[in-house]
């Protein structure tokens, strides 16, 4: 079976190379057989998927059958590894994950080529671009990191999977992330294809919108699942640590988010074409860059589970992609001329523009922070670390500003918004936000009284007289201030979204003669994109509320013998029992702790410490009692060697559940936005065409049809 896998990998490379070379020839040549050859290239591209799928199946088969003659299987599995994790071995190591990337890319390519009738010529161009990417990854898998490498001697058992990866979410987190990363190749392929062939109109955006949204959805799921995995596995009570690899996954997400917004300006008004083309190029390049960071060891990261010298492959590929994009951008620059201009500074266009500038600013600033250690090493000769203090100082104000735009943007009209319209749309949500702020202050969230300071005001670098003057304002940039602002803005945006649904629902209610909720349902069905977008925005707001809760985290650590008590927040933990267990895959020590609140029994928690036999690596099994208000997060840290007493760490994380709920809402909203409108269920996407003018009249051109 490994032989078949290895052969199929090579065969897939040949097929994709054929698809790439013959595809280019067929598109460039005016020869009579060009179209028939182009068809063979399309079919070769589809066959690539079958060849890569067989190869991936061969590797999975080897993992399931404990074929330790393969170095990859030996290093990432063992006999007692549960079956689900053996399947996950496909993406647990470097060679396997590259094969997995190639598999997903070929699967996306298969669907794209299968649906070629949507626009045969554009799809042919996009197919060639995808084939070019595929050639790179298949060459890399075949010659840079082949997962079918054979051992000289066969060992009886494998070395096992990294314990950090033995967690249910690890079975789905990397595939989601990869689906997102790889999925960005499709809009990139369409974008580059449209630029190369000077595609008239914006139909390519209609075609790629769903692809982009699907890739964005997968990337969102991958990032959040990664956060959830870190929360449940790493045992430090957090979900985001600004690790370089985490940032690497976040960067394409930011640029894709910017693209999804700015592309609306191109669709509606034929504006920002150059910007959009580069946004999609950058998104793709950043997704490749993310893989480079994960796999090359360019920066230190706890996520870099596999490192090697394949970085040079990625540098070359990134450079080639950049040059190709730049070349066609310059060559066809005139094709990207905007068809309209900004009519007013207070308009939907300007809000999108601002949104894009802020998102791109965040993207560049985070990228600079990630790469700054390398720059410092180059300039000063030593490496430094850039971690949470820097990224949080940037992310918080950016996040708050974007939250504000989330509320304001959708209610501004295209072209121009009158003051009366602003007053009409924003008055009620603004009043609601002020009421929420007053309630929060009344409940005790008074930043000025809580005595904390934040990251921006570095007093010791200011003149002493200014320091003295400004000292009373030190609370302004504290976490409490940001939390109060975030919750107030969240209320504002929720108010706006609710008002939008309510108003639209009321109008339909009268028309349809149904109740308000039924009307809201039909409202959403009739314009899934708009109202799905509102649901996504609502999900993002809920996520922000979850993030804001981190300000109030509490933690405590103490030795706890039998009957010992720990008080944290409103909770009281009592040590009931300590046990040990021996299972085929690991040995474990666990604590049995009863949890009480105000003297009332709540539940029993079982935090554990496990040691995996194959790798002899220890790992936490965190116990979490989750409520909408807060999580009680308990870690069994092991025994104190001096006293032989178990050490328990407990953390109270307020509002963290809202983070996961917000994610589910975001997923739901994106799915809603992907569904076709109820009224347009049967209307296919049509090629933009010139509307015939009557004699004496000027022909009307659809937006985007200008050359």
């Amino acid at each position, binding site marked *: 079976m490994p032989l078949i896998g290895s052969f199929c990998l090579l065969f897939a490379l040949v097929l994709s190379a054929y698809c790439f070379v013959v595809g280019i020839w067929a598109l460039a040549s005016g020869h009579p057989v060009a179209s028939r050859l182009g068809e063979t290239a399309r079919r070769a591209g589809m066959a690539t998927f079958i060849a890569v799928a067989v190869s991936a199946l061969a590797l999975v088969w080897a993992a399931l059958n404990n074929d330790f003659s393969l170095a990859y299987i030996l290093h990432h599995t063992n006999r007692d590894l549960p079956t689900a994790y053996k399947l996950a071995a496909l993406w647990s190591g470097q060679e396997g994950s590259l094969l997995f990337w190639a598999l997903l890319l070929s699967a996306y390519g298969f669907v794209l080529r299968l649906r070629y009738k949507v626009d045969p010529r554009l799809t042919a161009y996009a197919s060639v671009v995808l084939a070019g990417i595929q050639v790179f990854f298949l060459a890399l898998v075949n010659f840079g990191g082949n997962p079918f490498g054979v051992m000289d001697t066969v060992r009886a058992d494998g070395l096992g999977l990294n314990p950090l990866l033995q967690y249910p979410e690890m079975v789905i987190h990397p595939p989601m992330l990869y689906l997102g990363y790889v999925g960005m190749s499709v809009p990139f392929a369409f974008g580059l294809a449209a630029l190369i062939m000077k595609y008239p109109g914006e139909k390519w955006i209609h075609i790629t919108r769903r692809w982009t949204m699907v890739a964005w959805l997968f990337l969102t799921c991958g990032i959040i699942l990664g956060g959830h995995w870190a929360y449940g596995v*790493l*045992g*430090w*009570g*957090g979900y985001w*640590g600004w*690790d370089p690899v985490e940032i690497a996954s976040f960067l394409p997400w930011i640029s894709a988010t910017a693209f999804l917004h700015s592309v609306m300006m191109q669709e509606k008004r034929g504006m920002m074409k150059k910007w959009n083309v580069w946004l999609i190029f950058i998104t793709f390049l950043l997704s490749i860059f993310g893989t480079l960071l994960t796999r090359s060891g360019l920066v*230190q*990261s*706890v996520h870099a589970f596999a490192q090697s010298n394949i970085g040079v492959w990625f540098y070359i590929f990134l450079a080639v992609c950049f040059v190709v994009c730049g070349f066609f951008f310059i060559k066809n620059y005139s094709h990207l001329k*905007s068809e309209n*201009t*900004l*009519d007013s*500074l207070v308009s939907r266009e*300007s809000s999108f*523009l*601002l949104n894009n*500038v*802020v998102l*791109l*600013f965040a993207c*560049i*600033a985070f990228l*600079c*922070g990630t790469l*700054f*250690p390398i720059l*410092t090493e180059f*300039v*000063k000769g*030593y*490496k*430094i*670390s*850039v*971690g*949470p*203090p*820097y990224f949080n100082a*940037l992310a918080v104000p950016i996040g708050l500003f974007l939250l504000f735009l989330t509320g304001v943007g959708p209610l501004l009209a295209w072209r121009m918004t009158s003051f009366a319209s602003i007053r*009409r749309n924003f008055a009620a949500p603004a009043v609601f936000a002020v009421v929420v702020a007053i309630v929060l202050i009344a409940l005790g969230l008074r930043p000025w009284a809580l005595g*904390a300071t934040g990251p921006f005001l*570095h007093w*010791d*670098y200011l003149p002493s007289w200014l320091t003295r003057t400004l000292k009373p304002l030190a609370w302004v940039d504290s976490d409490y201030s940001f939390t109060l602002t975030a919750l107030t803005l969240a209320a504002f945006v929720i108010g706006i979204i609710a008002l939008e649904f309510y*108003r639209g629902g*009321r*109008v339909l209610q009268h028309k349809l003669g149904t109740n308000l909720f039924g009307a809201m349902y039909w409202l959403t069905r009739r314009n899934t994109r708009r109202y799905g977008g509102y649901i996504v925005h609502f999900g993002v707001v809920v996520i922000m509320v979850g993030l804001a809760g981190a300000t109030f985290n509490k933690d405590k*650590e103490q030795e706890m013998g039998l009957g010992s008590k720990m008080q944290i927040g409103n909770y009281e933990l009592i040590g009931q029992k300590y046990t040990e267990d021996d299972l085929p895959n690991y040995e474990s020590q666990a604590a049995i702790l009863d949890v009480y609140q105000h003297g009332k029994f709540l539940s029993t928690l079982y935090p554990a*410490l496990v040691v995996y036999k194959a790798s002899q690596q*220890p*790992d*936490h099994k965190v116990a979490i009692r989750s409520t909408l208000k807060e999580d009680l997060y308990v*870690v069994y*840290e*092991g025994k104190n060697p001096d006293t032989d007493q178990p050490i328990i*760490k407990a953390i109270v994380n307020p509002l963290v559940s809202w983070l996961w709920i917000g994610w589910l809402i975001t997923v739901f909203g994106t799915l809603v936005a992907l569904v076709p409108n109820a009224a347009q269920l049967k209307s296919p996407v049509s090629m933009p065409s010139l509307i015939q003018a009557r004699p004496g009249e000027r022909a009307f051109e659809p937006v985007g049809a200008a050359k």
Partner: protein
Amino acid sequence: MKRILLALVLCSSLVAIAADDDRYSDLGNKIQCSCGCGQILIKCNHVGCPSSDAMIRQLRTALNNYSNDEDVLNWFRRSYGMTIVVAPSTHGFELTIWILPIVLAAVGLLLLFLVTRRWRSEAAPVGVVQIDPKLEELRKRARKETEL
């Protein structure tokens, strides 16, 4: 009198402890554990960590020895190397990373200003259009019916 003095001493020591806790939390969040786990020092809790306990003790000692926060961080830099501190310094070359976002934001805003100015100058001037009373009536009715 003795009680008042005792209360004052107690209060001032409580204030000092609170200030020390703030410094401990602030600086502890700027230092990473040296064992290679990549976690922030005061959050590092992985089993059998050979470094974090000793480093936390060193942090406490350094807080007592140095009144300036930068001196505490410099002590850690000298002892463990430059990468131990995860908050870039606000001196020398490392200041660049703090200034860069400000420069980027300024450039972004400048570009935004230039782009919007260019767009607006390119926009065809819109003449004052006489509002058709019938059309305005219809618009009012539409607004009323849609409550917008």
